[in-house]
């Protein structure tokens, strides 16, 4: 139809085609939405920083949870039989009897007598070296290893030990284990709480930064609306653009956090014997997030990128709704 209009209006189509070939560059058309703007770059930076903090918190929570679990399992795997010395008491026979007795119970995988040297080493920090155990009424220990999958009947062991071996008592470490479980759970809960707070802060920051970055886009939405673009078309354009902005930012932040954990892990491995690395390992375990940790980081990255895209889409919808409400006033 436009051809007919131009023909009737006397347009010189040959000349127009020549000019077009001369001046129009070949290549891709500009995207319907403006390419990178200052506000988009600022949004990328905000998303990167918030994703870095969220992934760092997530990694820390994973490490703390794993360390707490390790403490708990290690302590829960052991129990001790303690035998106190007495006048004319055959300690070695009592130790052997306690060991044999312990091994008869289901759920106990092994029992080991803490020998004189090991006992002396245990007391060395308090009593110094060169200790002669016979001169002191030092109790002796039998360390019992427990199968954590099917633990034994602690009360039955305790009763049997008290009945069959004089001066002996069984310590299942249950008090310690219970305390550690409580502590580990509290630590994990605290860490999860912090992560939720950081995630909430990230969500709010990303939402407001996205809306801020879109503040100048009202004119574009309006023009697209007036030239007959459907709401779905406009929303898709913005969602796609802001998802990519969010993805770049989140990838940068998430990868930086992952690299930091990797660097700490290598530092820990390279300084395994050094006191500072030992100290850090005692507190946090190995700085290894594991596959699940890196998987969770990837999820955070995708969630933040999706959030950025979704926010832009909702902002477009709200803008068009306002425009329509204005149209109806």
């Amino acid at each position, binding site marked *: *139809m*436009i*051809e*007919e*209009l*131009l023909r*009737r*209006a006397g*347009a*010189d*189509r040959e*000349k*127009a*085609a020549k*000019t*077009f070939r001369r*001046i*129009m*560059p070949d290549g891709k*058309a*500009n995207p*319907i*939405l*403006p*390419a990178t703007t200052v506000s988009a770059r600022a949004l990328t930076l905000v998303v990167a920083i918030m994703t870095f903090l969220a992934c760092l918190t997530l990694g820390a929570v994973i490490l703390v949870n794993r360390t707490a679990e390790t403490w708990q399992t290690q302590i829960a795997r052991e129990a001790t039989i303690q035998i106190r010395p007495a006048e004319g008491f055959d300690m070695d026979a009592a130790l052997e009897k306690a060991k044999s007795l312990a091994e008869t119970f289901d759920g106990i995988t092994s029992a080991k007598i803490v020998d004189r040297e090991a006992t002396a080493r245990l007391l060395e920090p308090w009593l110094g070296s060169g200790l002669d155990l016979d001169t002191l009424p030092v109790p002796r220990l039998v360390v019992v290893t427990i199968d954590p999958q099917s633990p034994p009947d602690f009360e039955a062991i305790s009763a049997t030990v008290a009945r069959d071996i004089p001066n002996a008592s069984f310590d299942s470490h249950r008090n310690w284990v219970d305390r550690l479980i409580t502590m580990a759970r509290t630590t994990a809960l605290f860490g999860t709480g912090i992560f939720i707070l950081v995630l909430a802060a990230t969500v709010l920051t990303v939402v407001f930064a996205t809306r801020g970055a879109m503040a100048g886009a009202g*004119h*574009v939405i*309006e*023009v*697209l*609306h*007036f*030239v*007959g*673009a*459907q*709401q779905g*078309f406009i929303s898709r354009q913005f969602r796609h653009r802001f998802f990519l902005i969010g993805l770049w930012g989140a990838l940068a932040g998430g990868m930086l956090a992952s690299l930091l954990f990797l660097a700490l892990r290598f530092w820990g491995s390279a300084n395994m014997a050094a006191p500072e690395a030992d100290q850090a390992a005692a507190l946090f375990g190995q700085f290894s997030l594991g596959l699940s940790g890196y998987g969770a980081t990837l999820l955070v990255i995708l969630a933040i990128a999706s959030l950025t895209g979704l926010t832009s889409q909702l902002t477009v919808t709200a803008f*068009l*709704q306002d425009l*329509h409400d204005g*149209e*109806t*006033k």
Partner: protein
Amino acid sequence: MIRFENVGLRYGIGPEILRDVSFHIPERSFQFLTGPSGAGKTSLLRLLFLSLKPTRGNITVFGRDRSTISRHDLPMLRRKIGVVFQDFRLLDHLTTFENVALPLRVRGREEASYKSDVRDLLAWVGLGDRMHVYPPVLSGGEKQRVSIARALIEQPAVLLADEPTGNVDPPLARRLLKLFIELNKLGTAVIIATHDLSLMEQVDSRRMVIHDNRVEIYD
């Protein structure tokens, strides 16, 4: 095609800008809309473009009652209405060529299917050698011509033009008017809002004059 019956319009709780407006825009008609500054020409155009709803009265557009048209139906109806905005409404990050092609692009058409039409139309409005530049470097008159080309590119059923020759010299104004007339001959109803008496004198057509918030029709 478009019918106004006792239409009134006010903004908020202000006075009525348009009162008891009744007229009919038939298919293939050509009319000028005129009146003093601030009389309500742009508001009337916005009512015609469906970007405002009347405070009272009935508007029927392409057989549909304005009050029943939903947000989702608006884009499809707007595709039948070409608008030349007084403030041009061009996108600064798109070239002249891309701005004119925008209505076709948002409908999902491939560039190959409309390239020659956009090119020839731009050449005809005198912007053949400005197709590759961006609006910030165009003059007011050039922007206006881009806006006109964008409104015409789809050959709409109705063309609404708000002061379309306000920023161009008389020869170019005559040239653009010729384009509007040819468009009208091909079946598009044209409504041109203007102050330009010399422009109106060039065409013997219906005139809609806004006076005292009412529209008087001179056939």
